[in-house]
């Protein structure tokens, strides 16, 4: 009986010791991995940072303009009259011509004109 108890104790101490060391080594290994991942994250962040700076450089307005002039020669500067309010854009005509237009228009529609109104619709705050 006494020997058994001693044996159990010895086994338990052994198991505990092994488990302890095992976990310690595992934690150490994981910490190593974590450090490596952190290093990679940092490197990625630095790379992203550099790429952002490069993006800012490559999207300079004058450079975009140069590219636009070269590859989109038909594009012109926007004229103020081309700017419309969202209300001035007409709703698409209902595909089913049989139904009255009012059924197709959502209830929230303001009293918007059905036809395209040029940018002459004025807005005054006075």
């Amino acid at each position, binding site marked *: 009986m006494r020997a058994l108890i001693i044996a159990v104790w010895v086994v338990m101490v052994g198991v505990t010791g092994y488990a302890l060391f095992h976990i310690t080594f595992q934690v150490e290994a994981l*910490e190593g991995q974590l450090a490596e991942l952190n290093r990679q994250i940092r490197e990625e*962040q630095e790379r992203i940072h550099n790429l952002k*700076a490069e993006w800012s450089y490559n999207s*300079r*307005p004058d450079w975009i303009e140069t590219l636009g002039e070269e590859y989109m020669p038909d594009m012109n500067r926007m004229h*103020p*009259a081309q700017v419309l309010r969202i209300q001035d854009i007409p709703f698409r005509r209902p595909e089913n011509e049989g139904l009255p237009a009012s059924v197709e228009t959502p209830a929230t529609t303001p009293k918007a004109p059905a036809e395209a109104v040029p*940018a002459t619709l004025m807005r*005054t*705050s006075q």
Partner: protein
Amino acid sequence: MIGPFRKTRRPKPPEFSPRGRMTHDRRCAVLPHVPTRTDGTFRRAIETGRSRLLITGAVMAFAFAAVGVRLVDLGAFASPATQAETTHAVTETAMATDRATIVDRNGVIVATSLTTTALAARPDRLLDPVQAARRLARVFPELDVADLEAKLTSDSPFVYIHRKLTPKMEMAVMQLGIPGLEFERAESRVYPQGRLMAHVLGFTDIDGRGLAGIEQGLETRLKESDEPLRLSLDVRFQHVAHQELAAAIETYDAIGGAALVMDARTGEVLSLVSLPDFDPNKPAASPDVNRFNRATFGTYELGSTFKIFNTAMALESGAATLSDGYDATNPIQVGRFLIRDYHGKGRYLTVPEIFVYSSNIGSAKMALDVGPPAQKAFMGALGMLQPIALEIPETGRPQFPETWRPVNTMTVSYGHGLSVTPLHLASGVASMVNGGILFPPTLLARDEMPIGRRIVSEPVSFDMRRLLRLNAVAGSGKRALVPGYMVGGKTGTADKPNGSGYNRRSRISSFVASFPMNDPRYVVYVVLDEPQGTKETFGFATGGWVAAPAVAAIIERIGAIAGIQPVEEDAPELQHAFAIELPEETKRLASLQQ
């Protein structure tokens, strides 16, 4: 084991015994010269041991008690929220730079720090400096061998060979394997937009200290926080203003100029250009004069644009109304000064006519009606008498007469005798059109409405908008008109002082505009320094000829970028609201005015 509290038997008091009996004692026989238990020293040793044991025991008991208390505390009372993070699993997520990035109002990077590697050498540790110099020169063809040799054989303990190595260069130097060379990680400031914001951003020296602009003015903020600094400027607006100003300077052969776009409602500067400029990536490549900031540092007599303030002051003080008028028949002689009109009408002029014709005589009389002290106070309230508290150190101090005499009042009324920076003028005009409230100008994005200071009442502000609109439609501002944007503006042309008097050939021509006049959003100001007339302008180099077209071009382009809804300018409601009656002659002749 003897516990600290176990009672030990006290030794019996020593009893006198003759020496003969002592020989029978066993101990005495074994250790004849050791002190016995009856001896005083022995007892003292035991006492010391016991008290030491007691102290140790107390300390141990206290330690265990502390551990126990802490255990109970952790187990029973500690809340999960206050639990400290695990100490060993360090997570490094944020990349830190020495200086914060600067972005524009939309988040476009305009200045940032990139990690670079610098190559340095410790000459005293080099084995063969001459050979090292020769081998290094092969890696860096741009460096001179003789210079390198001189550097590597010098007495200084540390010399820089190259401040910005590419990874490829770094590799090549590593492969040389020269002992005594060192790599140093450093940061270099990069301005991806190049010259675009040169005068706003400024630049840094090679060690990353701000030497001008925001870099210098907000040095502490940039160093302390990694959060990007958000400017009020818009890269797109800035590009437009830069391009159009450069074009105007080129066309009219000016020596320089400035362009400003301000948000009339918040005082935010959306665009600030001063030309000529420099590349903040290599500031030394441009002449030093290019660093002069004409928009915020240079002070000028800005001429007739001051009539905006003068008229508003007269209307606000009640000295005049839009239907009043002044006799502008004859020039005014004050001492050696002669105040006369550029386009003399030689008759009685109404207040709107004085504004539209830019009559100096009428303005001077209007200012005299208000009086010198009130005028000085008004200019002070507008901030025209002190430097603007901007985020950059380059802010100009206005120059004005020490004693504000009537003659000064007269000259200041049309923008002479008081030198301010273009930014002063733009922010002043913003306060005139936005309902009468002056907002301190800023280069940083404002997320909430700033607290402004009321300068003029809302009706006066509306009158000013009507006058500015009238001037753009019927007066000197026609070349600034952009159909649909309700532009209103005022020209300013001032001769530059040269020592004793004024030089009629070198002048400051400017145009200040705001749009849309029915609900002003932006103030646009263009100043040209010493423009020359061309064949197209019939030799004129006044604000209406040279600066107004640039303002129009800027308005047309930024209006589209900002998505401002064009209005129908001929609509009866607007026509009615902005109508100002002018005598018939004015309507006919207005088209000739500059």
